[in-house]
């Protein structure tokens, strides 16, 4: 049962910003988070602003001043096949390839994934690890927010009601990030991650690690990152670093102990294989 008060499809960015400034709207991207949430009783009587028609403005991937810029409305399916993403941010392409199912990947957008602010959003670890920022636009102007700072807790973000997320900027200095994205679940598709991590490196920025589903928001694993600079680290060293980097909980999908164990194993593996 969906209870909505209004549905409106905006036809330009200007119109969107104007309306967002006047009234309270719930922005509808692909709807793959919002619609199931509504079925479960959330967003009661919301006014939905559908932004699908802004695909021309918010749907491209490009290199800009040596950085990789990804439009808010890019879908997971587009990103997993995009040549620029595959070359410069391969772990993001990999993460997108593992989101949900074909249907979900074709509708779900990267902005929706980030603004939904789930600690289990698959695109977030790569964005956080790479130090990506999001551009928020409103009638009052724009601001850039690091992706790591967008979610304040599950389901909550720093986005203002009158703002629209337009794009993500991944700093590259013209060079590619390389690395791995691991998503742990009990099955191979349609799986919300139990724990995930991006372990990436860049010629200028060095090794970066971000972990998801092991805390209220996706965070860099700074202690573990630091170990990558040293030789001869043991699994125990990584276990101690992880104890500080992440704060997982027990839930119906897995225990905190498992989440800790599995991420320690994977990050230590990447250390050994680096």
């Amino acid at each position, binding site marked *: *049962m969906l209870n909505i008060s209004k549905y409106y499809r905006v036809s330009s960015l200007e119109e969107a910003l104007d309306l967002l400034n006047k009234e309270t709207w719930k922005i509808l991207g692909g709807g793959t988070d919002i619609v199931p949430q509504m079925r479960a009783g959330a967003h009661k009587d919301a006014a939905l602003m559908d932004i699908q028609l802004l695909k021309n403005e918010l749907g491209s991937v490009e290199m800009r001043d040596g950085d990789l810029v990804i439009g808010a409305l890019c879908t997971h399916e587009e990103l997993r096949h995009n040549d620029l993403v595959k070359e410069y941010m391969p772990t993001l392409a990999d993460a997108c390839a593992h989101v949900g199912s074909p249907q979900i990947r074709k509708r779900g957008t990267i902005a929706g994934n980030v603004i939904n602010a789930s600690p289990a959003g698959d695109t977030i670890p790569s964005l956080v690890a790479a130090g990506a920022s999001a551009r928020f636009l409103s009638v009052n102007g724009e601001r850039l927010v690091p992706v790591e700072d967008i979610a304040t807790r599950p389901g909550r973000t720093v986005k203002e009601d009158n703002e629209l997320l337009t794009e993500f900027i991944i700093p590259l200095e013209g060079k590619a990030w390389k690395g791995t994205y691991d998503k742990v679940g*009990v*099955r191979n598709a*349609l799986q919300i991650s139990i724990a995930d991590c991006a372990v990436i490196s860049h010629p200028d920025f060095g090794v970066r690690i971000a972990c998801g589903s092991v805390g209220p928001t996706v965070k860099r694993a700074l202690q573990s990152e630091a170990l990558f600079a040293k030789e001869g680290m043991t699994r125990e060293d990584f276990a101690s670093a992880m104890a500080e980097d992440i704060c997982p909980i027990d839930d*119906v999908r897995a*225990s905190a102990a498992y989440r800790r164990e*599995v991420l320690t194993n*994977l990050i230590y593996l990447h250390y050994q294989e680096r």
Partner: protein
Amino acid sequence: MSELRYVGRKIVRDDGLTKVTGQLTYPSDLKIDDMYHGALVFASVPHALINDINVEEALKKPGVIDVITWKDVPGINGFGICGPEQPVYCKEKVRYLGDVVAMVVAKTERQARSAVSKVHVDYTVLETVSDSVKAMTDSSTERIPLPGTETAGHNKISRVDYSVGNVEKIFNDPDVIVAENDYKTPYEEHVYLETDIAVATVNENGQLELWGSLQYPHLDRTEIAHVMDLPEGQVIIHAGYQGGGFGSKHDMTIQPAAAVAAWKLKHAVRVHMNREESFLTSAKRVPYQFHVKTAADKEGHLLAHEVVFTADGGPFVAANPAIFCFTIEHSAGVYRFPNVHIEGDIAYTNNAHCGAFRGFGCNQICYALESQMDELAAKLGMDSLDFREMNQIRTGQPLSMTHRFGGSDGLAVSYDVVRNTNLYKNKEAFKAAAAKPYLKRGIGFGWALQGVGMGNFCPDYCIVDVKLHEDGHFSVSTGAVEMGQGVVTTCHILAAEKAQVSYDQIQVLVGDTDTTPDAGGTVASRSTLTAGNAMWIAFDTMQDYAAEELKKSYRHVALDFDGYLCDGRLVTWAEIYKLLPPEKHTVQGKYHVPETNKHLPFGVHYIYGYCAHIVGVEVNTLTGQTQVIESEILPAVGTVVNRLGYEGQAEGGTSMALGYALMEDFRMDQESRVLTKNLQTYMVPTTKDMPRVCKVTPIETIEREGPYGAGGMGEVVCIPGTPAITNAIRDAIGMTVRELPASPEKVLMWLRENA
């Protein structure tokens, strides 16, 4: 049997096109003009006495027509396969969170649902009993069944204690090799695509008519007639085509409640559960805790087998006693033990409602037994396949429970067939092919047998009507239900083969108390065998009538394709129709499944199907995840009727076995609240989890009792895959899986402790 025209080929299912094009109507597609919609008021606490049900506020909500409660039930306020113990609408107490207290009926579903919270139920809350062992052993726990219900002990649904020979004597012998272990299995949810539905109405003849999620329309008619206090002739049930069932729809859910509402209001009422409601209320696979002790002599001959178990039956008797007996019957599997001792109790708890699920109590014990077989083989230093073959039951011998059995000889040859599989022949290469040092590979086997039909637990018959029509085609009707398993196509093939007519000269009707006769339940892997034999009988009669009639005019009369060859001329069935008197246009065949020679304290079968399964897995020792890389399933269930349907069943069975082995786990907390409320947290395998090599290899030995040698395969194919996978995990990393599912977490935590 090379002369067969249809049996054994790849035939596209009759309902395939209408299903993929969306034309076929399932019960949930049915719309009756102006119908009302019901929304259920479930118990808000798992165990409580009801003091008062106040519907005043709900009645005032927009669109609300009425709120139905126990007061509106004209007859017996209860239903259930082994006794009418599940209330249609709760009166004195609620016993689990899926119990229905009332139903709001309104003009739209939205109106009905939004008034549900306005029905106020006053409860005296009782202690929640969620631990099945404590429920039975600690007499201070709150009693769950309704007052006056006969039980086998405190919160005990039933108990069986059965022995053959003397296991103790064997276990006390210092020279025997013993494996003694505990095993635990989870609740499992069926996840049929079409969630539970009921549409009930009163037709122009004043009869109650109901469409719904049902697997045995004729029994459901009897039960609903009792609830309604109506003669059976006043009740019509349409089950026809279902969007999946897997046994769960053998237990009714909301159908009696909908019937009561429609009858009271003399108006059509539709109730359709959403996924969360279906998860909450529908019957789950019964969870078990086993303690198993198995002994062999030093040469590897099995000597004794002891299984002591408790099961959690949930709040109702439901089908639990039958499931429980089935477990006992199958507890020695395909092996011959001179001494057995089986002892078990099944408890009432406030947890999920439990019932039939493809395999019916065999899956649980097969997993435990097949794990024991591998462990014993390891202790004996024997090859686990040789060990199994050496101890298999042989045709002609009685089973370990001491009753005689019929069935195909497929089991005897299955060991060699398994040895001939690619995976077995190349097992060392398979294991060496892991791409990374932290990936470990192993192979494993499982064998299962599964009783076909009801056993001597209850009458086991099937009726088929065959009607010859004016244009010469036959309609074949039987009360079996098409749930996707392919019974319509199977009946079509068997009928066309037996009648020796063109394929399009047969029309199959199913699942309806008005237009089809009682087939027994569409359960227990029984439809191919029972409907096939019943129609065989019917066509024999029809052919006798025809031959008799033709012999009046011709000298040489012989059955031929699409008619009779009479003195060199083909007399078609359309012509025969004209010759036969009208009463001979319709014939009936009734088939009884043969019973075995003994009545034991649990129902036992005469006919069994067998299945072997070999898998190769890869365990990631960093994450605990298990991938099934290769699978070959080898059912020995008689002749293949339809190669496509057969493969579909076997592949679907493989995926179900995989889900049970690795991920399916319906969970509740200690207050019996469901934690895995829907498909977001309840995991079933997807196509991406299926093995890259997924072979189906029929072991086609004749089932002597079956039509064209066919037996029953619906269930047995989902059973041995589970222990095959857990045994392969053992082969890969040395871990004996003591509790299903072997989730990544359990595997990784085991690895950590045993590093």
